[in-house]
Each structure stands twice: as structure tokens, then as C-alpha cells.
């Protein structure tokens, strides 16, 4: 409970200080992210891959993107899982600390957007804690909540596939976190214009 007291005088890594210093002004950039993870428990489960796209001025910037597969050899070994997909993947492979550092440098002070983004944020917070950093300070938007707000639905959650169907976004047969991030980004653009968010 008094965890924060322990950290109060602790020295944070350099990249984290730079990150914190960016929050002086408000950002116009959105970062749409999607992750693959082993489960939803932030302390027992780990991130397997991270994909993200930036949205500026209502357009998705394909060049301003982030993709990484995380080498979670320890976790996979402990749980006796195969690491086949990591080997096959053509994406850049990073260890967890490297990936988290790169990702923090990528997002800067942008607004994070995702589908059920709270789980993702928790996963990042857990990973950041392991690196001796604080919690993410970015604002976060959830496209499921945006959709429910648009239609005043309170009693139901929508999966990414359901949302894609509603907004007529073609679902690709290639399933990956980049694919999901791209779809989320399109959904975000559509919802954003419908909700009139600047």
C-alpha cells in the first residue's frame, strides 16, 4: 500500500526521464496500439508483440508506426510453450526491456487508443515496473467505449470483429497485432468523425 514511498527517491532510467519531460504540452498525435499477450493478468502474463500506428490530422501515417515481437524466452520456457511464432515472424525481435524502451520513445505524449485499451495499459505498467519506471501518463481512449457512447449502449461490450462488421471494415484473414492495430485505427477515424472529436 505504501509502495510509492519505497520508490520516492529512486533514480529512474534515462529514457523515462525524457518521456516524463514531454508532458509539458498537449499532443495532437494519437497512437493506436494493439498487443498480443499471453493473458489478462498484468503480473503473471507477458506481452508477446506490440504494434502501433500514429494518427495525425485524421490520417493514419503508415511511416510513423511501431512493430515488435518480444522475446519472452523465460516465460515461454517456464510455461512450456513453443516459441515457434517468434522464430517465424519477420518483425523486429526485441527483448522486453528493449521493446518497452523503444515503445515509450515512440509514443511520447500522444493519446493512446486501443480496443479495451485498459488491459494493454496495465500490461505496460507492469512491464515498466519491472524496469524500475513509473506508470504511463498518457491519456487513453477505448474504441469500444467510443462506440457505446455514440449509440448509448451500456449493457454490452463489442469485440473488435463485431465493431469491424458494424463499420464495414474488411476483416483480413491474416491475423496479427499489426492487422488489429490498423483496423482499430480505421475504426478510430470513423468514430472520431462521428463523435466530432477534434
Amino acid at each position: 500500500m505504501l509502495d510509492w514511498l519505497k520508490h520516492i527517491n529512486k533514480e529512474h532510467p534515462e529514457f523515462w526521464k525524457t518521456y516524463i519531460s514531454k508532458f509539458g504540452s498537449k499532443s495532437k498525435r494519437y497512437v493506436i496500439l494493439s498487443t498480443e499477450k499471453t493473458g489478462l493478468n498484468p503480473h503473471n502474463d507477458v506481452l508477446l508483440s506490440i504494434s502501433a500506428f500514429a494518427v495525425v490530422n485524421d490520417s493514419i501515417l503508415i511511416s510513423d508506426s511501431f512493430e515488435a515481437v518480444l522475446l519472452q524466452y523465460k516465460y515461454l520456457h517456464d510455461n512450456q510453450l513453443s516459441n515457434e511464432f517468434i522464430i517465424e515472424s519477420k518483425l523486429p525481435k526485441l527483448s522486453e526491456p528493449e521493446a518497452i524502451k523503444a515503445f515509450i520513445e515512440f509514443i511520447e505524449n500522444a493519446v493512446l487508443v486501443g480496443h479495451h485499451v485498459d488491459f494493454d495499459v496495465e500490461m505496460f505498467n507492469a512491464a515498466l515496473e519491472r524496469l524500475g519506471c513509473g506508470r504511463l501518463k498518457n491519456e487513453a481512449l477505448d474504441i469500444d467505449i467510443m462506440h457505446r457512447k455514440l449509440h448509448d449502449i451500456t449493457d454490452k461490450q463489442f469485440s473488435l470483429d463485431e465493431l469491424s462488421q458494424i463499420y464495414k471494415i474488411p476483416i483480413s484473414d491474416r491475423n496479427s497485432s499489426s492487422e488489429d492495430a490498423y483496423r482499430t485505427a480505421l475504426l478510430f477515424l470513423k468514430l472520431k468523425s462521428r463523435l466530432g472529436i477534434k
Partner: protein
Amino acid sequence: MNTIAEHIADFLKEYAPFDQLTFQELSEIAANIRVLNLEKNKTLFQINDPLHDCFYMVNSGLINLYAIADAEETILSKCHEGAIFGLRPFFAKNNYMMTAKAREESIVYAIPIAVFRPFVANNAAVLDFLLENFAANSQQTKTSQNLGKSIISDTVFYSDQKAEMQFFQALSYNSNPIVVTADAIVKDVAQLMAETLLNSAIVCENNMPIGMVTHTDMSSKIATGRYTNTVSVDTIMSTPIITVIENVSLAEAQLLMLKNNVTHLCVTQDGTNKSVIKGVISEHDLVIAQANNPGVLIKEIKRSQSSKELKQIRLRLADLIQNSIFKNIPLTHINNIASEINFAIIKRAVELSILDLGSPPARFAWLSIGSQGRKEQLLLTDQDSILIFEDVAAEKYREVKDYFLKLGKKTTLTLEKVGYELCPNGHMGSNMLWCKSLTDWVKQYDAWMNTPGENSNELSSIFFDYELVIGEQKIEDAITNVVFRNAKNNTLFFDFLGNDALRKNSPLSFFKKFIVEEEGIYKDFFDIKTRALMPLVDSARLFALSYDLIGINNTYLRFKQLAITDPKHSEIYLNCAEAFLTLSKFRTLEGLKNDDSGQYINLEEMSKIDKEKLKNALAPMKELEELIKNKFQLTQFS
């Protein structure tokens, strides 16, 4: 390498000009693309907006390009999936000359010019493609032989300027003329001309043109008997030959023809008669260059050799219809022209199949049924047709039927390629059921009319609107006789038709509100086809059959004729005729706007005045309904 960039590169690869680039290059472009989502009716750029740093490609949805003339928006072009637009920043520095607006919610790729320019510089084919399409006006874009999936649209000339612009445009002409030597025999040359459907041949010596033989020479010098057809061709050719340089303009060609009183010009490399022959320009080419004139279209249909060419012509017909409607040419007139052209296309499709399969083993008639049969097809709708062949000896029946089934299949496939969808109910000559001998058809009509509703074979009323496309007139007459003989005092049949006509859902609610679709993708749209047009069509047919109006298939004409035959109710009929025209026009406009059959009308987009007009057009149907109920005393079924 980014996964999504790879997907985008996959998409780009499908369309010109990107198909000229390697996947590596495409990936590089794709990695720098921006993806935009445009909500419906959102403007991407406007006339006089400063240029963007990119051009655009449609990924999904529909973008319309407009020019504004006299405070009116004119659609220049519609950009579908894969189309490229907004190329202006490539070639010009001044502001946009048109407006791009999303017609539907669309996803658009913005391709930065800075990224794309190096590829253009290194690849001549890409540059040519872009230049050609940037400079082309809409008419040329559509008629050009470039049948690739995309049509780049960057039209900056709109109708007002078009007339002058095209006067100086380069002509497209036949670059593959018949070339014969001076000692060729006239008979052989004539044979060659007949086979290639060309009306001229160039006579040359040592590859230099020395004269020209045309239809006129053939008829005035051979057919009159002045020379026999075995003389050599140099005796009858017209000299001197008029030669022009390759990129001659329309105006110049026209002047040369008038000045020299010739119908053909020979194109040579340097414009003199001492160089290599490049092609021949005929008067026909001049006419084509000037307009999408219906006569020209029909002539071209008769000459076309493939479904591809027919498709081009059908596309131009759509332009013609659109222009005619905007110019307020009476709809009946447009209908006539459009149906003549449609018929010519179908006829040519049948002919092409016959050329392929060999001549038919028996006489036959190919009838268009449904809206085509009524000559009311303005938009591309599905094809409905039946095939009737004359009775043959029993032992030959199988073989003959096989042939005609093949003919039907081939023709419907050709038509499908041209753009007429196959009928979802299979009402086509390629269907076993609707490709039968005359006797079988007579039996079929007898059964339909004398025992309607029986045999579960639901009576499809479209079979009573038919029109001969190609084949024996006598066969059609025979069917007509059967229909009207059976119709005499056939209460049961009229009951059936009457109920069929009245069963359609009413268009307005009790409170005079439009009844709109309640679910599906057309939610809140008004179904003008089933709710407004079909009842009129069905009733017109019903009355026409009962009053013995033989040979009038068109709904409008049927009502007009009815007003004469049944003067007591002439007012109702005339109102219906007018209403029918108004409704058809609404449907056609909607269809042109969305490139579909126009069945569903979006009421939200209509102005108040138009809505009132539409409502007024629905009123006459009520009176007509009463008339049907009185006249046919619909009791047996209701």
C-alpha cells in the same frame, strides 16, 4: 518492413500505373502512405484550394469529382476502388480545378508526391500513363481502350469547354488499314474489305501510297458495270491520295476532306505520300470524335468483335443517357434510343455467338422480356430473355435444343461481360426451361393463361412483355396470337393478373408519409421499383391484354393507347402515363448518381419540392386501383 505497408502494396499492385513497378518499389511507396477516412459528403479538396502535397487513390467507397459551372455542380467523374485522382500537384502549380467529395463513406490513400516522383522519373510507362490521364477529358477517358480496372480521373475540362477542346484533340483512327498492291484484283480487294468490315483500302507501290479504293469506287465503277471485277485495282482507285501527318486534329481533318471532296485520308509518317503508311482516317472517325451520337453507337455495335468493345459502347450509352436527362430531353425519346442501342448490343451478342458456333440448325427467335421487352431499360439491370426455335423432327430435337442452349449460354455470358447481370431467377435463354420449341412455348403460354396458379409454377408476368431481338418475326407473331386468343373472356387469368398488380405494397401510409424499408442495408430508403413503378407496369399490362392492344409493350404507350381505346377513363390513363414518366426519371437519376439500378431512393437527399413531385406521381395509382377492382371484379382470389 511494416506488415500493413505490405498489404497496401498488395492492393496497389492490382491497379495501373502501380502494376508497372516492382514490389520492392511499391513497398517503399506504401510505407509512406497516409490513410484517410472520409465520412459521407465530406469534401477532400475544393476548387481553388491550394494543392495538397499528395495525390489520392480510393481504397474503398466512392469519391465524386465535381466542377462548378453557373453555380451548379456537375459530376465530372466517379472514382471507384482503385481509381486515382487529384493528380494536379504533379503537373501544375496553381490551385485545384475541381472538387472531390465522398459520395459514400470512403477510405482513401494519400500518396505523397515527393515519394512517388522518383519512380515516375525513372519509369517512362508510369509517366505516360499519368500524363495521358491528366490531359484526357472525361469523354476520352471513358472511350479509351484502356480497360484496366481503374480509370484515372483528373478531368479539368467540363462540358462548356469540351466542344472547343475536342475540336483540337488528336483523332483516333484505324491504324491497321488494308494495304494492297497496284496489281491486286478488284474482286480480292472487295472480299478483303467485306471480311474486315472496312470500307476503304490503300493502294501502294514500294510501300508508298499511290491511291485509295473506297466503297464509292466499288459502287460507281464496278457495280455499274463500267469495269469487270477482274481488272487490277489501279484502274479504279481514286488518285491522288490525300495524305496527312500522324497527329492531325479533328478540325484539320475535316477541312481537308471538304476541300478535296474525299471521304478518307491516308495517314503517313511525315504527312507526304513518300513515306510509310500509318493508318487511315474515315469520316466515320470524325463523327465518333464529335459525340456519343446514338447512330454512331449503333454502327459501332454492328462492327464490334468482342464483349470488351461492346462494354465500351455500353459505357458511352450511360454517358449519353446522363447527358440527355440533364438536358431535359423527353424521357420517352431517351427510352427509345436507349432500348434501340440495348437491342443492338444484344443482337450483336447473339450474332457473335452464332459466328462462334456455326449457323443455327433451325429458325429461331430471341426475345427480350421484362423491362427490356417493354423498352424501359435505361440503367444496367439484369438480363431477361427467352429463346424459341421452330419445331423440328423428333429425332433431330435433341441436337437442335443442344445447339440453342449453347447459343443461349454463350450469349448470356457475353452480355454479362458487357455489364448486364444474369437474371437471379434464371429467366434467360440459357436456361433449359426457357429455351424451347415453338410448340412447347405455345403449351407453356396455354398453361399459364388457362390454369394460372396451378402447377405451382408461379406466373411470372414478365413473360407477357416481350420484344423480338433477332430471328424470325413469325415466331413472335405466333406467340402473340396465342396470348391474345387465350386472353379473350378469360376471367380467371385476369383475376390472377389483377391480384398480382394490386398485391404490391402501397407507397404511402395512411398519413401520406412514404413507407420506407424497415431493415437491411436500404433501411429508410424508398423502394421506388416495387412500390411505385411495378404497380403501374402491371396494371398497364393487364389493361393492354384485356383491350387487345397487340404489339404495344411500352408502359407509357400502353396508357396513351388505353386513353384512346377506353375514352371514358382517359383522364386516369393519361395521369398514369405522366406519373410513370416522372417516376422513371426519379429512378434513373438515382441510379446514375449511385451507379446502380436505382431501385432504392434516399429520401433524405431529396429536396422538398422533389418529394412533393414524387408524392403527386404516386396519386394516380389509387384511381387506377379502383378501376381495376371495378372492371375485373377481383373475387376468386382475394
